């Protein structure tokens, strides 16, 4: 397939395959991601949804045996082309990981690190402004504003994950990838993260991988169902959950396997 030239979509994947050595983990997936929408990837364990997510900011590059074929574009620009700077790509396409992974530094330093290495702040006050804005947007400001110099690792699990989201949005990304962001959290912390995703939707294109179908139904506008490396079905979340076109999708969301 050819790439659409003036991209109507924020990100597009065309016929993407990922190999781990001989293991064909993702098989010829094509998908479009749009601004102001939350796209959920669901599917049973090992279906390749996390692997596929990591192709959007080239995090698979860090795995020596991983190989990606096909084309992924960001604003029509091929992110796997030699001209693409990976460092800038990852600033534009931020990522939140499954397990909260704050740096063992202060809360302030955690959020300030990204803007600092990308030179986004012109002064100390500017940087403080960015940190405050990011923490507010991540819904963490009220809880930590008096202890910004405390270690980020001293926060609770849910707070740590929101700190990681604040850290990701501090570099002002266009797309945020979330890899099962609530799977290590308790229900209350999960609810807060979901609420946060709702609030963030207007500013960023968000892609979220989740095990939890209710979560996908709650937070996303579009859902993609993966099985054994294939994209089985992709559509509006409401349609996919109420009237799945594919038999396999129906079996999965009704709990026949997974």
């Amino acid at each position, binding site marked *: 397939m050819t790439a659409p030239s003036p991209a109507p979509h924020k990100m597009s994947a065309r016929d993407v395959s990922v190999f781990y050595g001989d293991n064909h983990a993702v098989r010829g997936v094509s998908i479009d991601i749009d601004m102001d929408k939350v796209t959920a990837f669901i599917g049973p364990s090992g279906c390749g949804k996390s692997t596929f997510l990591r192709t959007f900011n080239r*995090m698979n590059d860090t795995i020596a045996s991983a190989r990606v074929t096909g084309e992924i574009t960001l604003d029509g620009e091929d992110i796997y082309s030699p001209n693409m700077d990976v460092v800038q790509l990852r600033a534009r396409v931020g990522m939140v*990981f499954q397990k909260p992974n*704050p740096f063992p530094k202060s809360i302030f330093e955690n959020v300030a690190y990204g803007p600092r*290495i990308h030179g986004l702040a012109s002064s100390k006050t500017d940087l403080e402004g960015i940190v405050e804005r990011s923490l507010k947007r991540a819904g963490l400001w009220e809880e930590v504003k008096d202890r910004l110099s405390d270690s980020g690792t001293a926060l609770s699990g849910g707070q740590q994950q929101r700190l990681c989201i604040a850290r990701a949005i501090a570099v002002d990304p266009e797309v945020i990838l979330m890899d099962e962001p609530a799977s290590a959290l308790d229900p209350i912390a999960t609810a807060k993260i979901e609420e946060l995703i709702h609030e963030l939707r207007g500013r960023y294109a968000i892609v979220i991988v989740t095990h939890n179908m209710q979560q996908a139904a709650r937070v996303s506008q579009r859902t993609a169902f993966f099985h054994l490396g294939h994209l089985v079905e992709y559509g509006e979340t409401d349609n996919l959950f109420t009237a799945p076109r594919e038999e396999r999708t129906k079996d999965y969301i009704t709990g026949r396997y997974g």
Partner: protein
Amino acid sequence: MTKPAASQAERRPTDWKSAGMQKRIRRRYAAERRFRMLGAGAVILSAAFLGFLLLTMVAQGWRGFTVTEIALPIDLKVAGLKVERAQLATPAADLALAGAGLEDAVENAAIRAFGAEGGTYLAPSAWLAVREAVKRDPSLLENRAIVHVPAATGFDQALAGDGDAAMEAGVARLRRQGAIARDFNWAFLHESDSTDPVAVGIWGALKGSLLTMAITFLIAFPVGVLSAIYLEEYAPKNRWTDLIEVSINNLAAVPSIIFGLLGLAVFLGTWQIGGHVYGPMLPRSAPLVGGVTLALMIMPVIVIASRNAIKGVPPSIRDAALGIGASPIQVVFHHVLPLAMPGILTGTIIGMARALGETAPLLLIGMRAFIVTAPGGFTDPATVLPVQIFLWSDEVSRGFVEKTSAAILVLLAVLLAMNGLAIYLRNKFETRWQ
């Protein structure tokens, strides 16, 4: 315990109080106790060995830090020394006093004060003490005074109950006169090697060790840590890197004397051939060559320890940094290295401690020379603490026994200081990075 039961219902409840069960419990507790006693025994045994070592060293070594002094009544006016007073403040004073026969005057004073054997009670360097006293206080030339001078090695031995009959008589006589004093031996801390055990000092060897360690650290630490970073973070995992890993592990186990031969052959041999033609390149017996040789020796240790420390940094931290667009070098220097630093420092200190105590390779590159002045720089001839200990332990004169122990105590003190620094640095990094 149960018969092959047809269903769960037929299975009898386990009797936890039965005799067999009680026996099992007793045996389990006994095994537990035995293991704890073995462990405690191992710790006590090693502590006892360490305590024994320290006690012997301190018992023998404390005398090395003291000096026996004889209060020598001396009247230089009687001796008739012809020295211009004005000369005493000039650099020519030493020569003038020697030329005026100060050495003989001191010996005569000893004979006058302590009898015919009196001269032998004083160390050969005793007149130097008088010379310094005269330079400090020229009025000694006109007055009768008492100057404290170091005693001869034989006298010192007799004082410890280990001398010959003549000396023991002398000790008894001077003791009656109240002319014997023991003082802290400051000279031991700022003098260097000598043929006379009374006059030796540790400073030359200590400074040699410090200079050598500085070179070793400056080469081994950066090269070792950078190699570890490259191998862990950048190098592709393939047959070549496997080969390098095996080679490094083998290098860490190579006997140190081999590295000494390498230093001799490469740094002094091959490069020195050029030296003969184009002028001296690397001198023998120098801390520079010793330091480079020891750096080669401990580099594998640092590489292995650093790689393990870097491996121990959780991958999630790398992901986090990469995920917000840190470049690989930023990931390493901002996140991985600071977190790995405590482990890297521990490995480095283990390596440095090994280098500090190393003797064999330094013997081969000539750092066993008899050197009476402390090295002024990295290319001056020098010796190091363990080599100095080796040299002194080889001396015939019994006066060197306590000096050897004293030198061992100094070496242990330097080791302790280094370990203390390592622990301090480790704690500092750990609190900063939790």
